[in-house]
Structure formats: structure tokens, C-alpha cells
């Protein structure tokens, strides 16, 4: 019985943090957000680290670790607001593992084929979104807020029976959204009799995939809020007003204490939910919902509070703190905001 990270997991975190600092410093994130960097170098550096297969068994070409390890990777990417689509690939990896699509999985892990994830309509349908199968080889319909479209060759999606399909991006019509979070562009995909490959006819994998994605979103937010708190504390120890550092004012100290006091238990919850995927399957879905909803709430509180501690500087584009603010904001909305996800938690408990 041991509920803490192993030395190897700390090393994994450190190496992803190092990657983030070296390959995706803030200036580069900014260039990406402004369209002046296509992100391909950041992506290939991530692929080269081999972490895409963190939660993929060794026999399938992965690292043979667990969802917790994938979540620790995601956490560090959130901490650095790194503009790479680790999340959709980590989710797709689970789909491909489940369905035994080993060739496709090998190509994905090698970075040869990139995927986007279009599952938003399976969580909640807006603007008439929804995907239906036409026979067993084509799809019709649309999905909004697909992640990872930039550079993707394939799209993983689900039909109204919950079955999983893979579509070539070239067979879909794509329109990118103007979303607040420029570090992970989102888009809309439209299928018109689009040729598609049915990879999970059972319809049973979808639920888990959504929950895996929710844990990863929670992990991303966790990394981002930790960064925002660290930045707020550091700034408060530098900035002086009334002849003293603002971090010596109790009002500021208490805001920082409140952020810290919320972040640490949330971290424990995220760890547990991710661990449950591999080891406590009966508890996984409920914990994933709670991890997502809870970190959404902690995220909102920390994002605004850490910004506030920075005063006017926090509000500027110059400082770049807003990239974290927006990333946290995007994680909150994606694949079910906290109210929706909590209602899922209620249903899972037969309330």
C-alpha cells in the first residue's frame, strides 16, 4: 500500500518539464499562438521522447506504464502551456489498444500518423452536432470542438451507437474554431458520406475513452494551476508597494494559501482517478468525473486569483499569464463542464 509517486514518475515529470522549457519556452508558445510557428518541431520532440505510449503496454510498443504516467506527462504540458496535442493521442492510443489495431498504434506512436479526437457530440450535442453510420463503411454528420486537427491525418470519432470510427481528415470537411485557447486549436468536422473504418463495433469503449480524456484534462489543469500559483508567489516576493513586497500583505498571503490548500487535495484526487483506470476499474468512471469537475472548479478559482495577485501586469498580454488562464478555461468547457460531469457522477451512483 503506497499512495505516492515513484522515483521513476518524478523523473518522468522532470524530463517532460525539461522538454517544455527547452522546446516550448513562452516566446515560442506565443509564436505558435500567433500562427508564426506550425508546432511541428515541438511535436516531433515530444514524439522522440516516447511518452505518447506511456499508458500503452510494452508488447504493443508502449512504455508499459499506466494512465497515471500519461497524466503526469499531461500535467507538465499544462504547466508549460505547451502547444502539442498529447491529449488526443493519449486517448486514441487507448482506443487502438482496446481494439487491437496494432499497426495503426505503432504508426501513431512513431509519429507517422497523427490523430484528432472528435468526441464532443458524444458528451453533449449542440448546434445539431451528431454522427450517424451509413452502412458499415461511411459516416454522416458533424462534431464540434475536435482536438488535434492541426496536422492530423486521421480523426477518431463515435457514432450515435457509441461505436468508434476512424476517418481520414482528407475525407472530412474541417473548419477551425476561433477559441480563446490558442495553444490547442479546436475545430469542427463534417462528414458527408465520408468513408470510415469501424474500429469498435461493440460501442463499449467510448465511455472509458471519455473518462480517460477527462482525467487528462484534469491533469492539464493541475499543471497549469500549479504554474499560476508559483508565478503569483514569485511575483508577490518581487513586486513592492507601500515600501514592502506585496507578498508580505496578509490579504495576498491568504489568497496564495487558499490556492495552495485547494491544489494539493486536487492533486491527490487526480492521482487516484488515473491510478483507478489501471487498477480499480470499478471506481474509475466516478473518480474521473470528480477529478474533472473538481479541477475545473479549482482551476477557475486559481486562474482568476493568481491573475489578481499580479495586479495590472496579470491582465496584460505582455506577461503571457493569460495563456494559462485560457488553457484552464478551455479545459473546463471541454468534454463536459463541471455541472454536466457531476450529473454523470450522480447517474453512475444511481442517485
Amino acid at each position: 500500500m503506497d499512495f505516492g509517486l515513484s522515483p521513476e514518475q518524478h523523473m518522468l515529470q522532470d524530463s517532460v518539464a525539461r522538454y517544455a522549457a527547452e522546446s516550448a519556452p513562452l516566446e515560442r508558445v506565443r509564436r505558435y499562438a500567433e500562427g508564426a510557428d506550425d508546432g511541428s518541431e515541438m511535436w516531433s520532440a515530444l514524439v522522440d521522447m516516447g511518452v505518447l505510449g506511456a499508458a500503452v503496454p510494452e508488447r504493443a510498443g508502449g512504455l508499459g506504464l499506466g494512465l497515471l504516467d500519461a497524466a503526469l506527462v499531461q500535467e507538465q504540458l499544462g504547466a508549460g502551456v505547451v502547444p502539442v496535442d498529447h491529449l488526443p493521442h493519449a486517448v486514441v492510443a487507448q482506443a487502438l489498444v482496446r481494439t487491437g489495431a496494432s499497426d495503426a498504434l505503432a504508426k501513431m506512436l512513431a509519429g507517422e500518423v497523427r490523430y484528432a479526437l472528435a468526441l464532443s457530440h458524444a458528451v453533449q450535442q449542440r448546434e445539431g452536432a451528431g454522427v450517424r453510420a451509413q452502412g458499415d463503411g461511411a459516416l454522416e454528420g458533424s462534431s464540434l470542438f475536435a482536438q488535434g486537427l492541426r496536422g492530423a491525418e486521421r480523426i477518431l470519432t463515435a457514432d450515435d451507437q457509441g461505436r468508434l470510427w476512424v476517418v481520414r481528415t482528407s475525407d472530412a470537411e474541417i473548419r477551425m474554431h476561433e477559441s480563446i485557447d490558442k495553444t490547442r486549436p479546436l475545430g469542427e468536422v463534417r462528414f458527408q458520406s465520408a468513408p470510415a473504418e469501424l474500429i469498435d463495433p461493440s460501442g463499449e469503449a467510448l465511455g472509458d475513452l471519455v473518462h480517460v480524456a477527462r482525467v487528462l484534462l484534469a491533469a492539464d489543469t493541475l499543471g497549469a494551476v500549479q504554474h499560476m500559483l508559483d508565478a503569483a508567489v514569485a511575483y508577490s516576493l518581487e513586486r513592492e508597494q507601500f515600501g514592502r513586497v506585496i507578498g508580505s500583505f496578509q490579504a495576498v498571503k491568504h489568497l496564495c494559501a487558499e490556492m495552495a490548500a485547494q491544489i494539493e487535495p486536487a492533486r491527490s484526487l487526480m492521482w487516484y482517478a488515473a491510478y483507478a483506470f489501471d487498477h480499480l476499474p470499478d471506481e474509475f468512471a466516478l473518480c474521473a468525473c470528480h477529478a474533472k469537475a473538481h479541477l475545473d472548479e479549482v482551476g477557475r478559482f486559481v486562474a482568476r486569483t493568481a491573475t489578481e495577485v499580479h495586479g495590472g501586469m496579470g491582465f496584460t498580454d505582455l506577461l503571457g499569464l493569460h495563456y494559462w488562464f485560457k488553457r484552464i478555461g478551455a479545459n473546463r468547457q471541454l468534454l463536459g463542464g463541471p455541472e454536466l460531469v457531476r450529473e454523470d457522477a450522480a447517474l453512475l451512483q444511481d442517485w
Partner: protein
Amino acid sequence: MDLTYSDEYVDFRDEVRTFIERHRDQAPIGELSRSRARLAWQRLLIEHGYTARTIPKEYGGYGAEPDILRSRIIAEEFSAARVPMGLADQGISMLVPTLLERGTEEQKRRWIGPTIRGEVVWCQGYSEPGSGSDLASLKTRAEVEGDEFVINGQKIWTSTAKEADMMFCLVRTEPDAPKHQGISYVLIPMDSPGIEVRPLVTMTGHAEFNEVFFTDVRIPTSQIVGERGEGWLVANTTLKHERGMLGDPNAAQAHLQQLVDLMREERADGDRLIDNPALRDRLLKLQGTALAMKFNGLRLLTSSARGEDAKIARLAVKLNGCELNHQIAALAIDALGELGLLYRGDERARDGGGWQWQYMFQLGMIIGGGTAQIQKNIISERGLGMPREPKTGG
């Protein structure tokens, strides 16, 4: 990370379950503190090592090696079976660990056994009218006359002083030393001449705490724990234990489960309370927070087993846990609507009016044992390395 229990622990869990099955008819009902049945139960638990587990045998305990997993299994099984755990009053949770760390051999032999058996009840005499959060400014004096301390002054907010046999108390013995270095930690019999206890009725309508007045109270100087002037250090040993106890995530889990049951059973306008979307969402939010605190508790167990300092994860327990308990009671009251107003003694009161009592009592817990604001000072200073509050006076 590995949440499975090895065979040894699986066997231990079976053992605890068997014990509970076999003895549950002897378990006292209700929490009435010192009934004969309660004390007999306590002795039975000590005998089997289900409380006072790591206290050495020579002091009346069970004498097992510390093993946080076994302690956790005991706590889980007792609370799952809803049978009372061992007593955990201030004497047992705070004084006994302090004596084990700081007491003389003679003090350990004399006090630990009767305390863990529930035969000697203690109260904590720290706070004074002028010294609450700024505890180190306390003024109650103890002057040495021969081999006695002569004590004069006043304590306040002293829980259970009326029922207590003994008090562990902070007094000023070195008035000229800087404030933190002039304090001593002493043990005072509550029947000493010169002690007067006046109950203070609290907002719950009951006298949960008291004022205690000292007029020329004499105790032997051997009743000091630690050296003269070391009382602040000794007291901090106990405060550490107190803060782990306040905000205990297992207690929050139990309250939450009770609230879930209530909201599934109670109806308003024919619908279950849990089907009201606004109330349901609040319940789910609290469940998320309670789970976060529960898993945070697991993390603390592992840190202490590994000998690591969990830092903010530990410092946040009192602040978050007490607030959570308060919010759970608040939701129960809101969900009950006007029925939520009913208090002890009303036949329509749900759970004996206990939710209103909890709501008030938990606010007391937010204040007691270091207020929420003091916890935030501690988290920001010790956890985040922010500047200490300016110290004035002494």
C-alpha cells in the same frame, strides 16, 4: 503507487472484522462519554490492540510497532460497521503523545494508562481571554515557592473542564524572558483548591466549554513536562497532534454518507431531495471535495511511512477539513428547508436536530485549534515561503 494490501494486511482486516462481529453487542450505543459500557468497550479495544495500539505495554497500551496501515484498516472497519472507535479525547490525542515524547518515566507510568483507559479525563488549558491566536502572549503565572508552583490567572474556552480530572496547561514561569521562552507546560489536578470552573454556554445551547480561574493553586514542581521555559516547544508537540485530528477526512466521509442517505430518503412535494437539481449539484460538489480530502489522507499516510514531509498537503487538512464538515451540515439544513430549523427535542427534527448542531459545532472547529486565518498564515509562510507576519510586543 500501489493501493493493494499484502496478504498480511488482508488477514489483519479479516481479524478486525471477526472481532467486530463477535463483540458488536457489547459496543456502547451513542457517544455518551464515560458510561460504564463505554469504559468496558475501551478496555476491550486496548486488549485487542484496536486502540492505544502503539502505546508501550509498560504504560498500559498494546505495545505494537507503529504501522499506519493497520491503524487505517481498524479505522475503516470500525466506521464501516458503525461501531464506536476507541476514545479520542484531548487527553488521549494530545497529552499522551506529548508525554511519550517529552514526559519523564514517572509521568508516563502515572498518567498514560489511566488516560487511555478513559479513567482520567483531561482538558486543555491554553487559551486565555487576552491570548487566543497569539497564544504565546499568555499571562497565567506560576511562581516557584519551595517545591511547588503557585498558579494565578485565568483560562477560557476550556472544553470539558467541568468533567475533567486533570488539565494540561500553559503557564508563564519566566516573566522576564521573551514571550515564547517564558512558558512552561504543567499538569494540574482539577480538584486543587483555588480552581473555579464556570461553564460557558455556547451557541449550540450547551456548555461545551468553560472559564477556569486560578487563585493561588499549588502543584508540585515535578508536575512540569519538559524543562522550565520549554513549554512552547512542548505545546507544539500537542498542537501538531490536534491539527491532524481536526479535519479528519474519515469523519467528513461519514457525515457525507449520512447526508446522501438523508437526501435519498426525505421528500419535499413528493420528490426526493436528491432529485432537486440545485441540491444535487451541491451534494456532488461536496462529494468531490470529500474524495479529494480522502485521497489526500492516503497521500499523508504514505509520506509518513516514507519519512517524507507532505508539506502543504498536510498543512491544508485542518483548514479544508473543518470547512468541508461545516458545508456538509449547511447543505443538510438547506435541503431540509423549514424542517432544517428544528432542533433537539422536537419530534419532527431529523437526525435528532443533529444537523443544526453540526453546523454550529463545525463553525467552532473552524475557529478552535488555530483559526482558519491562522492556518492560512501557516500555509503561506511555512508552505509557500512568504514573509512572516510582523511580530510586535515581546
